[in-house]
């Protein structure tokens, strides 16, 4: 079974600053997919960014970018120019190629200070 670890239960960032959320995972697979989901108080899980393990280039979506280190099995999320609307719980998730279910970390709560 794959294990996804988010070691930071909570993170706080000043508006307009940058925050980095860490995620590590344990797998023996070589092909897999990694995701970051955002869950605001509304409970709606929103896909933030997706990374295919076979791609060396780090994924970027506007102010969100990842640092994917395959050898280290690390997949951190950087939120640049933080906005109040970024406040939410962020989940890192893993899916093995050929599988369908996501394995989630415990989540990191991000607070944005005005």
């Amino acid at each position, binding site marked *: 079974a794959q294990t996804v670890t988010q070691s930071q239960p909570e993170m706080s960032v000043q508006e307009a600053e940058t925050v980095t959320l860490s995620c590590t995972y344990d797998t023996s697979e070589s092909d897999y997919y990694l995701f970051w989901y955002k869950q605001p108080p509304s409970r709606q*899980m929103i896909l933030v960014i997706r990374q295919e393990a076979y791609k060396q280039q780090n994924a970027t979506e506007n102010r969100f970018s990842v640092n994917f280190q395959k050898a280290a099995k690390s997949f951190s999320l950087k939120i640049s120019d933080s906005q109040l609307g970024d406040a939410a719980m962020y989940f890192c998730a893993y899916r093995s190629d050929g599988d369908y279910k996501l394995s989630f970390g415990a989540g990191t709560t991000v607070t944005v200070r005005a």
Partner: protein
Amino acid sequence: GAGVSQSPSNKVTEKGKDVELRCDPISGHTALYWYRQSLGQGLEFLIYFQGNSAPDKSGLPSDRFSAERTGGSVSTLTIQRTQQEDSAVYLCASSPSGLAGVLSTSADTQYFGPGTRLTVL
């Protein structure tokens, strides 16, 4: 529809009662998933549907839990004889297909509904 919808949004029930949770996936999505999010924890996979078939029910925590999907669309998760430990948010997700394809590597991306918060008293 525009997104995955779930009903009810909140459900309070008494211990021992049965409950049904409903999920309407995005139109055209063949794959449907149920997850459970207990307080302060991450999401736990429950069951996966491809069309009307559920090839993997291994995540269901006990035989009190069952799910079905009809017409390749709406799914219902049923919990019989509810227990207090069943209290959680139940999230449903759908994806265009269950697996990433050569032509569409994001075909497996799962889109979530807002969940049903179940409270068992």
